[in-house]
């Protein structure tokens, strides 16, 4: 049904989205916790920076990454010189661009469920002898698990569709950075590519809807497990 090149784009999309979520999830949980549980100088600034990718054009995000992580950039150069890691024009770079774009989605979902956790439960855990990490992992984390999972699934589904940041930062290289949306775009630019574009678009649509449904199902199941509904 699909040509090997089309399969490659599907597989690459899944891989990029998965890596982006794996990369941003722990950081997003930490940032969400900071934003909802701590009052510190610069909190509004952090809040704004985290949410920037939601409002600025993806191409601008990609451009910013290019400046920072380019081989001559302030972060990209040491990465390249010391560790031999090159993010521009690579699959890892596509995953990074996707992670930055979907980061606010996870933070918002986790923060929302954190704000639903009664701080009194954490106080109860303290009085029972649980230190900060102990109570985070044994009380807070299990209680926000539904939020984390649904945030991760939504970020994954949204990541499958990232276009602007990837094409700007990681370019459009088949087999390397050409994810589904980029492949669809390339197909529409190619004479006779209408069939490919239609097939890939249908797959893209299906995966996004499946992701949304899965997120809802998982969240509902977990809520029941936690005895909240």
């Amino acid at each position: 049904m699909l040509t090997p090149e089309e399969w490659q784009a599907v597989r690459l999309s899944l891989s990029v989205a998965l890596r982006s979520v794996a990369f941003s999830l722990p950081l997003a949980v930490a940032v969400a916790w900071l934003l909802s549980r701590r009052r510190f100088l610069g909190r509004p600034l952090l809040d704004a920076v985290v949410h920037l990718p939601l409002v600025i054009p993806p191409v601008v995000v990609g451009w910013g990454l290019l400046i920072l992580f380019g081989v001559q950039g302030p972060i990209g150069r040491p990465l390249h010189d010391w560790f031999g890691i090159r993010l521009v024009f690579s699959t890892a770079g596509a995953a990074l661009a996707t992670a930055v774009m979907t980061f606010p989605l996870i933070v918002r979902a986790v923060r929302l469920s954190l704000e639903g956790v009664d701080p009194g439960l954490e106080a109860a855990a303290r009085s029972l002898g649980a230190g900060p990490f102990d109570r985070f992992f044994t009380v807070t984390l299990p209680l926000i698990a539904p939020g984390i999972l649904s945030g991760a699934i939504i970020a994954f589904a949204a990541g499958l569709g990232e276009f602007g940041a990837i094409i700007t930062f990681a370019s459009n290289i088949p087999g390397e950075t050409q994810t589904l949306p980029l492949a669809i775009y390339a197909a529409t630019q190619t004479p006779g590519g209408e069939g490919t574009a239609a097939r890939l678009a249908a797959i893209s649509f299906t995966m996004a809807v499946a992701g949304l449904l899965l997120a809802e199902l998982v969240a509902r199941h977990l809520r029941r497990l936690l005895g909240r509904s």
Partner: protein
Amino acid sequence: MLEVTLRHAWPATRDGEGFSLDVAFRGPTPGVTVLFGPSGCGKSTILSAIAGLLRPQSGRVALDGQVLTDTAARIFIPAERRRCGVVFQDARLFPHLSVEGNLRYGLRRAPREAEGPSFEEVVALLGLGRLLARRPAGLSGGERQRVALGRALLSRPRLLLMDEPLASLDVPRRAEILPLIERVRDAFRVPILHVTHALEEVDRLADTLVLLEGGRVLAAGPPEALTAEPGLTLLAGRRDAGVVLRCLVAAHDPGRGLTRLDFAGGSLLVTLRPEPVGSTLRLRLRARDVSLATAPPEGLATHNVLPAVVEGVAPAPFSPHEVLLRLRLGPTPVLARLTRDAVGTLGLAPGQPVWALVKSIAFDHGGPA
């Protein structure tokens, strides 16, 4: 000995007035210290500060000589290392754990050398056996508080802090939990600080009573002495003002349906009680249940006619037409509530010998101590 000195002020905000707390008191260990006062008097805040969940602006908290908080010496042991078990008003059971998981949460984190009741003992004492596999969401209010009490106990606390654990329960549930708290006190000898605005809990639990109002200590001491202060009766309210008597169950007379209770200063015949002979009881003798005669009365249905001396006459704080008389039965102070008219007619004055009349059925409240 539990020693507490706390000072903390909250500034006034747009949403409310400021509040300041300035208290100092001591409590026995083992023993039960009850903080009693109207809502908003700061009693739960004091409990939070002792638990280490609130950092006071200044103050000192020490338990059996170990300093938990001392702002002057910059000591503040974090709550998780204080080993103060807390039973919260809203139970705060972990919703993602079973009842057993909740009970074992503190046990698992208690120091290995800490002494205390075993899991099985606590489950048996609090009747939790049937509930172990259940989730907190499926428990009734009374069951939740029983689990919360068990969970706090199993963390092997050096001090058990109870923040109005009965306040959210209905009357039958309260009647079910209160005896359990007494059993915990008697069986495990863990010192308890109990916060409440219910008089019944004061009468049944308190070894030391701390009366609070508006963030200040009005009075502190043994409840038997404090309840006899006419100036403090307002806290108990018009209906229940009266002294707490510590009594020994001396003898039962099932034939007459009576029990004899001895207290320092005399004995009382009361309706037959369930407690065994030799046990101690704390009973509230309400001022409205005490009548007076200036000569020994005859032909009276009242069993208890006790010689007493009038010690003081004070206007009742709750009514301009009533008077509170402070009597002394041997070493025991007793309050009597009479109309102003009766006091005038009988010409009652301090120093005068009288007869205090108490009906046997006046003690249908209270419980074992």
